[in-house]
């Protein structure tokens, strides 16, 4: 091989090496397990049933969301409105759970729905909508955090183990001392517990189970984990002087 041919090989290898280095910087190894990402996907389970012929209005849960998405693609504005109304609490909670304040979380909610409109005809799996919303909301939240602070938020797996006061309501909204003690106790729970309780209790309604699954919990562990979180809340509340 001639000298210049060798230098060409070196030049190509060097160029590809530079691209690799840039990519390592852009998509760094975080070294952590992404339980949330996996759970958001695992929550989408094939049922083996044919797509329901019924209108989305008669369905619930994933089937309803999948049918709403298909109907929205066909121009059904009411189906799109239903999706936005029913799944905005989920998107909102993901944004707030990633440490954003109210104005930033509102921006994330808006950006996520705009992204859905852009991807309406390209989502590969209608039944994976909730997982897609969770992952998109999380990505938008991280971007918002980076833009406002010039730094990445704590890794999810680290952050969720830390107590957080992010969700304490404004003082003036607390009606009495009992509420204050309750929210102080809640603020000392791990972020994971706070998130689960928010989604299953505060965000409530018929979607809470699906939402909790999509966020972090394998099916079947929601109930026991929620029970442990409520027990922890009870312990903290007793430290505060009882309910």
């Amino acid at each position, binding site marked *: 091989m*001639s*000298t*210049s*041919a060798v*230098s*060409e*090989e070196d*030049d*190509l290898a060097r*160029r*590809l*090496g*530079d*691209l*690799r280095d*840039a*990519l*390592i910087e*852009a*998509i760094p*190894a975080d070294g952590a*397990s*992404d*339980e949330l*990402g*996996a*759970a958001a*996907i*695992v929550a*989408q*389970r*094939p*049922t*083996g049933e044919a797509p329901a012929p019924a209108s989305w209005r008669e369905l619930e849960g994933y089937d309803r969301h999948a049918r709403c998405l298909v109907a929205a693609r066909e121009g059904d504005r009411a189906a799109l409105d239903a999706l936005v109304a029913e799944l905005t609490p989920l998107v909102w909670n993901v944004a707030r759970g990633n440490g954003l304040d109210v104005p930033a979380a509102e921006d994330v909610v808006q950006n996520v729905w705009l992204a859905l409109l852009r*991807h309406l005809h*390209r*989502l*590969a*799996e209608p*039944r*994976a909508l909730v*997982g*897609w919303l969770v*992952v*998109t909301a999380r*990505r938008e939240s991280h971007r918002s955090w980076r833009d406002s602070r010039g730094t990445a938020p704590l890794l999810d797996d680290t952050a969720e183990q830390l107590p957080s006061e992010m969700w304490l309501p404004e003082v003036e909204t607390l009606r009495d001392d009992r509420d204050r003690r309750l929210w102080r106790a809640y603020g000392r729970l791990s972020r994971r517990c706070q998130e689960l309780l928010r989604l299953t209790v505060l965000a409530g309604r018929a979607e809470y189970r699906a939402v909790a699954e999509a966020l972090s919990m*394998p*099916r*079947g562990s929601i109930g026991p984990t929620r029970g442990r979180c409520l027990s922890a809340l009870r312990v903290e509340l007793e430290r505060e002087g009882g309910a």
Partner: protein
Amino acid sequence: MRPVVILSPRPDDETAFAAFYDRERLLLARFAALMSPHADHAAAVHDAFTRTWLHWPDIDPTRRRTRLYDEVRTLLAERTPTGSALPERDDEDEPAETLAALSALPEELRAALVLRTWDLDDAAIATLLGCEPDAVRDRLVLASSMMRELLGTEGDDG
């Protein structure tokens, strides 16, 4: 007509999938970003994992990685904007120039070269692309040759 039977994943599958997801997500994200910088590659990665999961019980465990890469390549091909896939050539910006050349390669050649960038050997690349190691070698030779031509270095020794 034979009914379509989709096997439902079991709890063990969830554990196996979570481990698979954690093992594969970094390389797949970087692979997708280099394969199609103009597509929403993060969304394609997510959807590729979702498609793989939805068919998890049906996929031979030895072919899960092949299936994952097959899904992401299909999604990226569908979602790369036509006509805008090539960045402007810019001699002042060497990475952009390299990326433009890479984007101009046929998909199979690009996939092999991108994986080689991460120091995978022929057998590992063959597994991910679902082909034989010999085919990987052929694709890499052709990809390198085309890259040199696109980058304007061919003929320096002539």
